[in-house]
């Protein structure tokens, strides 16, 4: 790995004041993003993955939020930065693509104008013609046919997949160093998903664009990610390269995610496996490991919070939060000949 990460997040904690008390949505998340890398953050709804992403952009700042820890972009601290500083970074050096392309454009303005608006927000001297020309160029780069004509369309005249392409074009307008894609394919058809992922992968390779990909879909992760972070209840529970995570998953929650994938190359199971139970309320977390109530392998040690540590000498970058030993893990994760989480004892 190269020496200096482009973005580094250190012990990030984001809490929201709610009527039920302080809701700790992100609880001590740390990671580094190297330039040219695709980092996937995986987790189910409420695991804190989107909040982490939005906090990097400064979009979770409000009267009701408490943000601690540190986020640095090439050495510049963002958590402590003023709103004006963050505003200058947003869209210029860090850009974001959102989940729902149907609602992420303002319905009353033409797409081209919305892209030009992003450019003018940072480069006041961009003329109308130059903004338009650049928008057409971006449309072509993300594979929108008839760019010249479509640039003057309104968002409702675009299909979902095309809108997401336009969204990516807008994010690329100022050639950011970091792109955060928050579930960019969740709202799209499977065929369109593949196209969008290929596009993101190409951008990453051709432009060296460091990308954080947030998703709950391991299939998406396998397609494009270099490194993966698995989040559960606001914490990172496992972190490793794509291969480490897929071929040697350490945390039972990751096993559960793997086990619930349908695989076309395996015999069809009678029932699609699932992780029993529901994620804990962030206002009322279990003592110790947050996954404990859903984990069939729970034992006495689990009442203490496990640290995020590398537990195998041969893979120092592969870290997890589970007290089981490496041998125990290898034995316990085999369920019916594949990786999975066995159903808890009745």
């Amino acid at each position: 790995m190269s020496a200096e990460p482009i973005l580094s997040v250190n012990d990030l904690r984001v809490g929201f004041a709610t009527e039920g008390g302080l809701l700790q949505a992100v609880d001590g998340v740390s990671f580094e993003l190297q330039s040219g890398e695709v980092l996937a953050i995986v987790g189910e709804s409420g695991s804190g993955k989107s909040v982490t992403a939005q906090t990097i952009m400064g979009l979770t700042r409000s009267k009701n939020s408490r943000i601690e820890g540190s986020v640095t972009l090439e050495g510049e601290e963002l958590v402590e930065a003023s709103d004006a500083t963050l505003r200058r970074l947003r869209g210029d050096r860090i850009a974001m693509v959102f989940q729902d392309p149907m609602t992420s454009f303002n319905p009353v303005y033409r797409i081209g104008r919305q892209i030009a608006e992003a450019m003018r927000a940072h480069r006041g001297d961009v003329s109308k013609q130059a903004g338009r020309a650049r928008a057409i160029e971006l449309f072509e780069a993300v594979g929108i046919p008839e760019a010249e004509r479509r640039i003057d369309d309104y968002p409702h005249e675009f299909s979902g997949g095309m809108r997401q392409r336009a969204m990516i074009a807008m994010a690329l307008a100022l050639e950011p160093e970091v792109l955060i894609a928050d579930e960019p394919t969740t709202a799209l058809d499977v065929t369109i998903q593949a196209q969008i992922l290929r596009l993101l992968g190409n951008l990453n390779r051709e432009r060296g664009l460091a990308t954080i990909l947030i998703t709950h879909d391991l299939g998406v992760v396998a397609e494009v990610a270099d490194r993966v972070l698995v989040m559960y209840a606001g914490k990172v529970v496992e972190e490793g390269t794509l291969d480490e995570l897929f071929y040697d998953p350490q945390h039972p929650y990751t096993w559960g995610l793997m086990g619930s994938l349908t695989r076309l190359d395996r015999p069809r199971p009678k029932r699609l496996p699932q992780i029993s139970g529901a994620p804990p309320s962030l206002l009322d977390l279990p003592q110790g490991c947050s996954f404990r109530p859903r984990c069939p392998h729970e034992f006495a040690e689990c009442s203490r919070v496990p640290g995020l540590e590398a537990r195998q000498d041969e893979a120092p970058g592969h870290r997890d939060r589970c007290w089981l030993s490496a041998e125990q893990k290898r034995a316990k994760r085999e369920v019916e000949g594949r990786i999975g989480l066995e159903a808890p004892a009745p």
Partner: protein
Amino acid sequence: MARFIVRRLAGMAIVLFAVSVIVFLVFNVIPNYNPAEALAGKNATPTLVKNTEEEWGFDKSLPTQYVTMMKKVFNGELTQYSPRIPVDERIAEGIPATLSLSIGAAVIWLFFGLLLGYIGAVRAGGALDKFITGFAVAGISIPVFLLAPVLIYFLTYKLEIFPSSGYVGLTEEPWEWFTHLILPWFTVAILSIGFYSRVLRSNMLDVMNEDYVRTARAKGLSERKVMTRHVLRNSLIPIVTLFGLDFGATVAGTAILTESFFNVEGVGLYAAESIGKLELPPIMGVTLYGAFFVVLVNALVDIAYAYLDPRVRLGASAQ
């Protein structure tokens, strides 16, 4: 677009027809009321009453009577009972005053309504927001028949800040026109200021949660641009509908009370007088004039809507 306008015009004609029929029928069910007697004037001889009855066809069937009346409306022969002046003349005389009152009030309520709504939304939950909410609720709750006398009593008679009632033409003496209308303007506007500020505030708070507002922030737009170009712009769409309805209604009817209190010699005051005297022709005329304005303003709003929301534009041209 041409088809759209033709459809709107046809719709207007149907609405006006329905209004005229309803007003006409209402007058025919008022008990113990002989229009011929009223029309012939006080102390009329029985012969005169009889002649009048024949002229208007009051002895004929209802549809015939209706046709006779509508003929008079379209030929400009509709006259009030006493003194016998053509109704359209009286309405034409009143229109400048009524429009001065309505348009001025509309400008005031839009300006203050939107300003207070915007401030309330941007400062939601703060002290200023709470103050504006209190003011708005008070404005909505105070009826014209309380507000008007109170304003006249304190500001005109006690403090003598404003001239007493009446209307001065804009072209005659612009300054007098202005000072005479300030109190009526605010009397009409205060309810709408409260109402519009509440509606805009809640629209804006809704729009602030939209995904595209987050996108706008993620692009790095300044907070002011996010608020004006994205939040305010999209929150104004429902306000336009509201304004169309309210402005039409103000020209057509709301001004009746206010004009009466401030003695502004407009169409509303004329309507109030005619109702007092139970004179059918002027009421018919004034009602049709009011309905015409309501329908016209609504058609204009539909066109403005297409300008504000491109999705509507597509729908209209697709038909």
